């Protein structure tokens, strides 16, 4: 069947099961958009900015596990989607981004809206392709989806020159992929699994430290099985939230810079750390030379470069492989070799963990006559929506950390956040991408007054496509996390962190045809949330919160995990560097 490049593009997407693409047209992709216009199998969501399209594709991919797809034009269209590519690369999100390119004979001539798409995207994609001949288009698309979704997932860019979208070729979608340099499944080492099982049997103070890799591997059941069979507490990274139920008695919540006291003390004092699909990020480890000083480390990961990457952290049992497969084998090995109930051996450990939680639980205070506490908003949002099993997208900053701490998730793929790159502006379009995939589900976007302004133009898209995302702005009139660091480490000099000139968010929502609601006192909070939940279509809730609230616990950058600030130090904003030092050593029989 002879088809032109644009038709081949659509037929190939259909073969990959793509039902929606997020994008914005321009000169060199007009032929493709024209072809999309004449069919109904693949829906086009027209965004207001290419960055929005990229994050929507990410949100779609994170929520569904299927690759998200974006289509943008050359030059500025491509450069605008670089941030989502870099974000997806850091957080291992499978997206395929198609960019238009000037006609092949013009490449290199500084043509109108030309950019070196391949060169610009090379360091922030898993792989990228320039299609020089329409005969290669179908095969390239097949390879792009294969690379994006296998192994450690990631973004792939396909650059399509205008003439390639017009020229014709015989359409033949390849059944198989032949990439001799790409082996996404490294298999796993049986002897190491046996050694890991032995280490788990002997450990007195073990901990599972699980990250986003377990989410991508769809290994929630396997993580649970391992934790339960060997009675091991579970720390989750920011990216791993939801992969283990927050309400489970074995869950210690999130660890790291703003993790719970117990989660951080547990990993610091553990004698065995089982790292599952996590990469020892600096926001988790703190000072690497003092990271879990007493522990043997088992590291399970599909990406060989993640294993033994951090210089000061010795990995004793590295297991290269797909998390789901390795955990299945490991649990099987434990079933065979585990002698009796590990509850007894680990009782002192559990007593210690419970003591820590009693001493320093996650906490905040809210009285009726003061400003709304941001934690209270998240807490109430959680209480009032948890029954609906919502998907929660966040932006980046204080609100993100409070959401991570107080919005307790029970299932994976409910949590869409920008972890590695820390992209403000991610949350709202990501929520829309998830909502597009699941029109009937409740999708929340927890954001800040700063972050929301970085992609608020997509309100138009949300209204137009009837994507009923419920937006929660934690409005403290600051880049709050920046202000917090300035309080703690810059003697309270608020350099460029105060956001004067904020829009009236209620009027802003109304200007786009959405519903805007505002809460200014604690007694408004429930009412606003309830009203939003009972309103069709997108709703923007503006919560005017306390402007000075800070996120705790906090491990100051470069500190070790047991050196946590638990509250504002005295004389905050002056010389506040002293930390609440927790006991270094825990003696357990």
């Amino acid at each position, binding site marked *: 069947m002879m088809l032109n490049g644009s038709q081949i593009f659509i037929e190939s997407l259909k073969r990959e099961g793509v039902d929606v693409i997020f994008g914005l047209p321009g000169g060199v992709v007009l032929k493709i958009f024209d072809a999309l216009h004449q069919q109904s199998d693949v829906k086009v969501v027209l965004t207001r900015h290419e960055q929005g399209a990229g994050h929507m594709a990410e949100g779609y991919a994170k929520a569904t596990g299927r690759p998200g797809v974006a289509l943008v034009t050359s030059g500025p269209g491509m450069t605008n989607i670089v941030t989502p590519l870099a974000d997806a690369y850091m957080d291992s999100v499978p997206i395929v981004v198609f960019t238009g390119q000037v006609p092949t004979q013009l490449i290199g001539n500084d043509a109108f809206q030309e950019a070196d798409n*391949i*060169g610009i995207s*090379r*360091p922030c994609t*898993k*792989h990228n392709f*320039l299609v020089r001949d329409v005969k290669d288009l179908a095969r390239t698309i097949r390879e792009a989806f294969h*690379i994006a979704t296998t192994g450690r997932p990631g973004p792939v860019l396909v650059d399509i020159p205008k003439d390639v979208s017009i020229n014709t070729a015989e359409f033949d979608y390849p059944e198989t992929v032949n*990439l*001799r*340099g*790409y082996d996404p499944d490294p298999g796993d080492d049986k002897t190491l699994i046996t050694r890991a099982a032995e280490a788990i049997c002997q450990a007195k103070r073990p901990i599972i430290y699980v990250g986003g890799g377990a989410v991508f591997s769809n290994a929630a059941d396997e993580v649970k099985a391992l934790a339960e069979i060997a009675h091991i507490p579970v720390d989750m990274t920011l990216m791993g939230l939801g992969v283990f139920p927050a309400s489970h008695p074995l869950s210690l919540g999130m660890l790291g810079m703003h993790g719970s006291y117990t989660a951080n003390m547990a990993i610091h004092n553990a004698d065995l750390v089982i790292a599952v699909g996590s990469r020892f990020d600096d926001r988790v480890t703190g000072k690497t030379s003092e990271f879990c000083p007493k522990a043997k480390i088992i590291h399970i990961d599909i*990406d*060989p*470069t993640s294993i*033994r*990457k951090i*210089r000061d952290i010795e990995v004793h049992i590295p297991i290269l492989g797909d998390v789901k497969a390795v955990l299945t084998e490991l649990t099987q090995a434990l079933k065979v070799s585990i002698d009796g109930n590990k509850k007894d051996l680990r009782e002192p450990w559990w007593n210690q963990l419970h003591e820590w939680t009693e001493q320093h639980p996650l906490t905040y205070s809210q009285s009726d006559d003061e400003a709304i506490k941001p934690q209270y908003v998240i807490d109430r949002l959680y209480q009032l929506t948890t029954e609906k099993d919502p998907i929660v997208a966040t932006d980046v900053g204080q609100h993100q950390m409070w959401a991570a701490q107080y919005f307790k998730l029970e299932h994976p793929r409910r949590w869409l956040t920008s972890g590695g790159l820390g992209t403000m502006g991610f949350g709202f379009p990501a929520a829309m991408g998830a909502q597009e995939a699941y029109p009937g589900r409740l999708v929340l976007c927890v954001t800040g007054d700063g972050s929301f302004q970085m992609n608020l133009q997509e309100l138009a898209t949300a209204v137009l496509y009837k994507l009923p995302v419920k937006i929660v702005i934690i409005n403290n009139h600051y880049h709050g996390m920046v202000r917090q660091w300035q309080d703690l480490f810059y003697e309270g000099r608020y350099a460029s962190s105060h956001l004067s000139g904020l829009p009236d968010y209620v009027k802003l929502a109304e200007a786009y045809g959405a519903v805007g609601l505002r809460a200014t006192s604690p007694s408004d909070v429930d009412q606003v949330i309830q009203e939003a939940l009972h309103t069709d279509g997108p709703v923007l809730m503006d919560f005017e919160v306390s402007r000075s609230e800070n996120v705790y616990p906090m491990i100051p950058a470069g500190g070790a995990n047991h050196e946590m600030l638990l509250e504002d130090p005295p004389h905050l904003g002056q010389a506040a560097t002293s930390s609440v030092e927790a006991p270094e050593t825990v003696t357990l029989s």
Partner: protein
Amino acid sequence: MDVENVEREHIISMRVENRSGVLARVAGLFSGRGYNIESLTVAPTLDATISLMTIVTKGDARIIEQILKQLNKLVDAISVVDLTERAHIDRDMAIIKVTTTPETRAEVFRIADIFRARVMDSTNTMYTLEVTGPGRKVEAMIYQLRSLGIEEVIRAGRIAVAREPYGADTT
């Protein structure tokens, strides 16, 4: 000193897809992650779809391990081998222009002879020498000629190949 922390030179031989942009991927990986490239050569193999890159780099065990893993992760990398870990032969080539005076001419010629260099070109005031050999030999010759007045040195960069094991055909 911990053996892991000792910086050593490593010769990495990798087979890559013979496509445009592959060199940029490799070079970008080194610059983006802060690794050193001492030299890099690339040319097609007998199979026209495959190129061979020889990369000389420096680092301690941890860094070399990461470099090898990162190179292997490139979709266009077909195989990556650290030749330093096994018996190998390496060759560098240099073209050296040496300024000569009537007093130094014979000495330059003698040094060229010692290193089995070839005189490619000769004028009244200059020899252009070609030397081939292991990296150390080329460096030694450059070192000796330096005091006599080197005008210019052009080095090809190292290429290397694994040695065949002795008696491979009888076992």
